[in-house]
């Protein structure tokens, strides 16, 4: 499903799909206020639209309880005139974002336990990839798509399988996943995403300068990246976590039936029920219905 070069517009036309983290639990504890962050992002998005008349931008908000599209530069509804001080993009985006945050709050069922309040990154990644597939289908000429994650929430281990599926699908369609991570500690999921798909992972050191990081590192189209010195990946942690203790291991045992990872020898696989050393039967091998795979 890769896009052939002859089908594209000129090399420097981009479709930028931005996954904006709107997780209230993360933003309430962040050193940079959400409003300041949004103003950096809006300036950045306006600058991308100015780079080329044909550039397109789509913004998907990643909430704690839901994800949704909040801006699409190619939809006819987004042509509302801006006021004197704010551009059309700002007006539309802020309006939809407010609606989204209210909806997200209403859907809150219970407070998250422990310190991990992750947002639904797998959902917005999946939606972004569906949108990009639609662009590929749209006809013989389309822009170069790429995904930019503006993310700060911690990784949710329950999303591991879904995020890996999205990453592999992006790799097959040749869509790079860039990340500008504004949280406290590095996100292993986003580092792997950028490594596998050929995108750029950046954790800015000074959040007050977010606009500068965004425009210098993530503003350029894919063709120009060949001529730029962008931040290289400094060691990606590909080690696995064992399913039994969730600790990171560098040597382990894999069940040959379901590929679950264990840190020491067991007689029976806890995921698929196969007994090791004996021919396995169909009855014992119904895999778990929920995707409770270990994290990275």
């Amino acid at each position: 499903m890769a896009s052939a070069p002859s089908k594209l517009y000129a090399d420097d036309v981009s479709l930028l799909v931005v996954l904006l983290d709107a997780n209230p639990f993360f933003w309430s504890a962040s050193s940079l206020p959400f409003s300041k962050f949004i103003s950096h992002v809006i300036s950045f998005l306006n600058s991308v639209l100015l780079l080329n008349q044909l550039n397109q931008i789509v913004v998907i908000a990643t909430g704690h309880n839901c994800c949704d599209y909040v801006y699409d530069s190619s939809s006819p509804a987004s042509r509302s005139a801006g006021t004197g001080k704010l551009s059309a993009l700002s007006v539309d985006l802020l309006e939809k974002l407010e609606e989204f945050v209210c909806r997200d709050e209403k859907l809150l069922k219970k407070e998250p336990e422990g310190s991990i309040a992750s947002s639904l990154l797998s959902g917005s990644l999946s939606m972004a990839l569906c949108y990009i597939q639609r662009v590929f289908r749209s006809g013989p000429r389309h822009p170069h798509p790429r995904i930019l994650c503006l993310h700060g929430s911690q990784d949710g281990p329950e999303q591991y399988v879904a995020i890996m599926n999205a990453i592999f699908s992006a790799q097959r369609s040749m869509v790079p996943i860039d990340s500008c991570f504004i949280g406290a500690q590095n996100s292993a999921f986003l580092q792997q995403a950028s490594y596998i798909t050929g995108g750029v992972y950046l954790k800015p050191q000074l959040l007050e300068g977010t606009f500068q990081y965004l425009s210098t590192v993530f503003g350029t189209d894919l063709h120009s990246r060949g001529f730029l010195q962008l931040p290289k990946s400094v060691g990606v942690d590909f080690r696995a976590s064992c399913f039994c203790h969730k600790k990171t291991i560098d040597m382990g045992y894999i069940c040959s039936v379901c590929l679950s990872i264990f840190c020491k020898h067991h007689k029976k696989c806890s995921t698929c029920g196969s007994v090791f050393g004996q021919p396995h039967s169909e009855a014992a091998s119904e895999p778990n219905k929920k995707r409770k795979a270990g994290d990275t």
Partner: protein
Amino acid sequence: EDEDDVDGLEAWERAYADERSWESLQEDESGLLRSIDNKALYHAQYRRRLRAASRIQKGLIRYLCIVIDLSRAASETDFRPSRMAVVAKNVEAFIREFFDQNPLSQIGLVTIKDGVANCLTDLGGSPESHIKALMGKLECSGDSSLQNALDLVCGYLEQIPSYGHREVLILNSALSTCDPGDIMETIQKCKKSKVRCSVIGLSAEIFICKHICQETGGLYSVAVDESHFKELILEHAPPPPAIAEFAIANLIKMGFPQRAAENVISICLCHKEARGGGYTCPRCKARVCELPTECRICGLTLVSSPHLARSYHHLFPIAPFDEVTPVLSSSQHKLPKSCFGCQQSLLNPGNRPSLSVECPRCKQFFCIDCDIYIHESLHNCPGCESFR
């Protein structure tokens, strides 16, 4: 040239004589020409495939030998430019797709030429070495011999670990086979060794091939043209249903090396030269260039967690979506106006609802293109992932 001039028609003329593609042009409401609406047809085909693939256990660690027939029948030009060239091109695509979907599996290549089966490459996990070996030696002559091929393959597959699934894929161009003994005995031997043989024929249906596949539980198909052949061979890329007694469940010891930074230089085992980056075996600290691989010093299988994760969608598949019949009644207001995944309008011009599907778990609606993409490539339902 001779091969193009069948029935007195040139090759380009045949396309018009057979297909008459101008007759299937249609006009849309505004009078503009549009090409054939293949979408609904393609979607119906896809849904048939989906129903067939229910939740069965699959054999994830596969050892597959591909047997390529290079007898003189492979130089026939009914597949343009020749059967051998079409087979080679599609085997290359298949090898890449196979390692993409089955990163822990291994492939070996065998050729049949002059009635003798030769091993082209040993069982290994690196796509490039197989493809290079295949493209290097493409000449055909002599007879085909199915029995020699099966004997050779059984011998190789005896040596693999007991948890692996043994498979053979024979790409047969010939209409006859020249065997030194009783092929029925060889078939029974394969059956006893639990080798699953599948055959793709390029000429016509042959009884012995059908018999081999039936006895060993494989798949037999015959290709009618180049694109059909490509479809048939790529069907063998996803893991087949596992026949329960065929492989013994076992715990395999594997290592998960860390990737070193680009400026750390050391001598690698595969190329025997000093390079930066690379991975370090956790047991013996030797350096390898790429994963997955087997450490040459201590024999530990080295993989990265994404390699294992590539197969998890086989273990946690998503439910097929339900078709929504577009009913022009008052219930129309229940249908959302756009696809949840790609925001494409679910209404045809004129506000008639077009074909859409609904996820049984999260109750979100999707267009049929997203349905195909989600189930064939993404393996995540955006609706289920976007709600807690």
